[in-house]
């Protein structure tokens, strides 16, 4: 009897097991199928992206990148991720390629192009008309000034392409020149006017008399009126009320000659005048080492940072620094009019261009209309765009935590179901039941 009782229990257990396997088989059949994980290289993305998008069996994708994907491909991958596909990428050796453009603050126009690319690669800057320049500098960063560009500006470094739109140039605001009446002041004003700047001027003839040019010469210094002020000497600089506040608000200040000695401007400068040098006898007025026949040499004040743009005999002659949101330049050459008047054939143009560049380097930038950066087909920095869209690189994704595939699970459950039912049937037959 006990044997009979045990057989009944085993039959019951096999029946329950069979029913459980049947239930699991039904659940497994009803469960959505988990897709597979596919991988590709960045170069094959144009081919695989459409298939990944249309296939229901792709649960995850992994891209192996030796260069950042272009902006459309990156945007496509981001869209796949938003659609539920797990996206991952790896690419530890991708170089940083980036480009930025902004219009020069100069009546002559022009565009500054800042480019960054691994120096090992061939780097070409171009616009819609063709190549503009190649970056030959060994450093990763390069800066170009281009007179005019057509369409977007691109930087190609190896297989990576960074593309930047160019904001339209807007005419800069006026320049204010303040100085004692004299040849240097006169010819600086002339040079700036010839370069296309709108110039206001205050020229002091005597303590009671000043000659004014332009309707805003006596107005309070304000970046809404003037992009930059040029102070020609220390006495005039002392009369420039609000120059520090003007620079703090983003305006440009050029301190020429001994204007750096003005006590009122102490907060603006990072240099002090060391000595005034006169050119040796026989120096030609067109000699660009002198730009005239004399110059003030500056020395850095400790603790204040600035960039020396021109140095002669170990001393700074032209230097520039930031002051809050504005910029301050010091120019040691104090007789550049001689360069213009008595220099060579091109001295007038050279003098004009040089002064215009000095002023342009500090002039407040006129706000430009915001560019529509929503265009997903362009990227100023493909690697940064990649990080922004897909996050940091990671290992390949997995389809899920299920150890067996649905088909294998179904097969296994089928075997269990069949075996348990067969066992139960045999036991029933063995005890004579049907």
């Amino acid at each position, binding site marked *: 009897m006990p044997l009979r009782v045990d057989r009944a229990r085993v039959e019951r257990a096999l029946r329950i097991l069979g029913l459980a396997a049947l239930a699991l088989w039904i659940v497994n059949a009803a469960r959505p199928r988990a897709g597979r994980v596919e991988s590709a290289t960045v170069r094959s993305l144009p081919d695989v992206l459409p298939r990944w998008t249309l296939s229901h069996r792709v649960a995850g994708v992994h891209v192996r990148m030796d260069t950042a994907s272009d902006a459309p491909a990156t945007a496509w991958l981001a869209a796949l991720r938003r659609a539920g596909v797990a996206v991952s990428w790896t690419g530890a050796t991708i170089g940083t390629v980036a480009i930025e453009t902004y219009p020069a603050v100069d009546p002559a126009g022009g565009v500054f192009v800042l480019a960054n690319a691994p120096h090992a690669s061939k780097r070409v800057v171009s616009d819609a008309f063709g190549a503009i320049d190649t970056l030959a500098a060994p450093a990763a960063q390069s800066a170009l000034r281009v007179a005019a560009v057509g369409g977007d500006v691109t930087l190609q470094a190896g297989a990576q392409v960074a593309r930047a739109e160019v904001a339209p140039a807007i005419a800069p605001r006026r320049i204010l020149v303040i100085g004692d*009446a*004299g040849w240097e002041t*006169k010819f600086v004003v002339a040079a700036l006017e010839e370069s296309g700047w709108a110039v206001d001027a205050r020229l002091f003839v005597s303590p009671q008399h000043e000659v004014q040019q332009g309707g805003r010469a006596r107005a309070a210094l304000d970046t809404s009126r003037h992009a930059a002020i040029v102070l020609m000497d220390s006495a005039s600089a002392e009369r420039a009320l609000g120059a520090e506040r003007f620079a703090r608000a983003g305006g440009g200040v050029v301190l020429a000659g001994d204007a750096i000695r003005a006590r009122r401007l102490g907060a603006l400068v990072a240099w002090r005048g060391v000595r005034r040098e006169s050119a040796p006898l026989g120096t030609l007025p067109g000699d660009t080492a002198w730009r005239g026949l004399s110059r003030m040499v500056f020395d850095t004040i400790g603790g204040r940072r600035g960039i020396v743009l021109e140095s002669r005999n170990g001393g700074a002659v032209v230097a520039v620094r930031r002051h809050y949101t504005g910029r301050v330049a010091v120019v040691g050459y104090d*007789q550049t009019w001689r360069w213009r008047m*008595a220099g060579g054939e091109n001295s*007038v143009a050279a003098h004009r261009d040089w002064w215009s560049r000095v002023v342009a380097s500090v002039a407040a930038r006129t706000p430009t209309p915001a560019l529509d950066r929503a265009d997903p087909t362009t990227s100023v920095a493909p690697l940064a765009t990649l990080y922004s869209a897909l996050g940091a690189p990671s290992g390949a994704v997995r389809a899920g935590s299920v150890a067996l595939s649905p088909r294998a699970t179904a097969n296994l459950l089928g075997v269990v179901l069949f075996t348990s039912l067969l066992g139960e049937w045999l036991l029933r037959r063995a005890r004579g039941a049907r």
Partner: protein
Amino acid sequence: MVTATTRALVFATAQYESGDWDSAPLVGPNLIDSVARYTSLRVSPTPAIVPLASAEVLRFPFLFLTGHLPVRFTDAERANVRAFVARGGFLFVDDHNHDIDGVFHKTATEELRRTVGPLADLPNSHELYSAFFHFSEGPPTTSHELNGWGDNLVHEHLQAIMVGGHIGVLYSSKDYSSEWSYHPESKRFLAIDNTRFGVNVIVYALTR
């Protein structure tokens, strides 16, 4: 001695090969005295004489040219005058004859026309007449115009060649060369300093 590297204004007289360029040697010292007297401009106490045929002329952006005799520039002088004006120099030419048909006037105006361009009457409202002192009626008359010497005319206007909106060449038939030819010490005998217009000319040259 004037050094070529001074930062001060130097009153320079142009020495040209034809004519009597040195007919008014006291004008320079007299105007220097006036500029120093009325303004705070840095001015060299010593005037300079610069050959018009020399490239040195480009080191002196203010040039005074006068004389009685015919003016004929050499090729070098013509080239220098052309470059001088084009680069922003200011040439002040005064007819020491105060004649409307004198030889200096005829030849100098013709030479200037060939070298730089045609002269035109300067309006008496031009900013030259208010650059420092105010001359509401235009150029001040000279005693030589009033006493019947020369062409017996009071010249209503100065003439000028404009370069880029500014006076490049100022031409006078009023004989300021005679009017201002006295020792600066003698100004104390004048009720009104007659060199004040000269200050205007120099201030204009320095500021426009």
